[in-house]
């Protein structure tokens, strides 16, 4: 039994090996990029808009609203990064309804790459917003004693981000394949429907956690003075 799509090889030449994770990730990138290009080609501001444009507008507006609810005022700055994370993970998990597809998020290499990009983006946004000194000072925020714990927390939460997404998606695939052995007909369908829900929730949680970490790095200086209305 395979743990992830890393061990599913399609083609290899010398030491270059094309495994399932890379292939499905490329496919997803192609679908996302071409789809976005096709939809945004005919954008209009008239009263009647196409269905696809309406769908995209709903997604983008919802993401902007979520970013503002976390407490980041200018959502346009964080939307490209966090929105891309959410869209990629959500589409990767939703495509599990296609037979033969294995989610690339079910492999630890993909999820650690995503978690590493969050790990880099947090100091990037923090330094951009508060300056290098201000950001470094946030590591010893309550007292000086907390400095090692804050640094440890930085690494452990990156590990937690990667393993959480990997574990959830891998467990979904694993439970499905075990159920196919035991009760091959109806029950796996129910579980795969549950897997779709879990995938969406995990995409949401991954991007919300990335947002919360970025908001913590930026600090309370940019928080709105009164709680945002929801």
């Amino acid at each position: 039994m395979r743990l992830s799509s890393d061990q599913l090889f399609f083609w290899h030449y010398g030491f270059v090996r094309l495994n399932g994770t890379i292939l499905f990730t490329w496919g997803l990138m192609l679908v996302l990029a071409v789809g976005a290009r096709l939809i945004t080609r005919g954008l209009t501001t008239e009263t009647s808009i196409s269905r696809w444009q309406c769908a995209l507008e709903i997604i983008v507006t919802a993401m902007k609203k979520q970013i503002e609810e976390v407490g980041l005022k200018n959502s346009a700055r964080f939307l490209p990064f966090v929105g891309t994370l959410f869209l990629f993970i959500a589409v990767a998990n939703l495509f599990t309804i296609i037979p033969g597809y294995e989610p690339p998020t079910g492999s630890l290499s993909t999820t650690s790459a995503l978690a590493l990009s969050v790990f880099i983006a947090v100091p990037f946004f923090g330094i951009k917003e508060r300056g290098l000194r201000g950001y470094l000072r946030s590591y010893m925020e309550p007292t000086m004693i907390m400095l090692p714990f804050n640094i440890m927390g930085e690494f452990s939460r990156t590990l937690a981000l990667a393993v959480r997404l990997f574990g959830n998606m891998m467990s979904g695939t694993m439970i499905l394949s075990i159920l196919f052995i035991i009760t091959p007909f109806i029950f796996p369908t129910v579980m795969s429907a549950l897997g779709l829900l879990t995938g969406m929730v995990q995409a949401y949680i991954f991007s919300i956690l990335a947002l919360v970490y970025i908001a913590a790095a930026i600090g309370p200086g940019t928080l709105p003075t009164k709680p945002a209305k929801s």
Partner: protein
Amino acid sequence: MDDMTIIAAASIISAGITMGIGAMGPGLGQGRAVAGALSALAQQPDAASTITRTLFVGLAMIESMAIYCFVISMILIFANPFWNHAIAQVAGK
């Protein structure tokens, strides 16, 4: 019992124990979290979106403990490094 039997038995038994104990703690924690969120929702239905978002994030944090245990038990069963080492030693002889 030879080495491989001991490794196999220990891996399977500890995978079961890992999953059992690892599901217990997060289960209790998630129950408490949901109970708290529900009573907060009953008192302040207006704050539903904030409470739900915080609840989801918190549940994911708690759930990741169980997920760690699951990953460990899956590694013990399907990708056990000690087992592979024993197999490689037997094959090398």
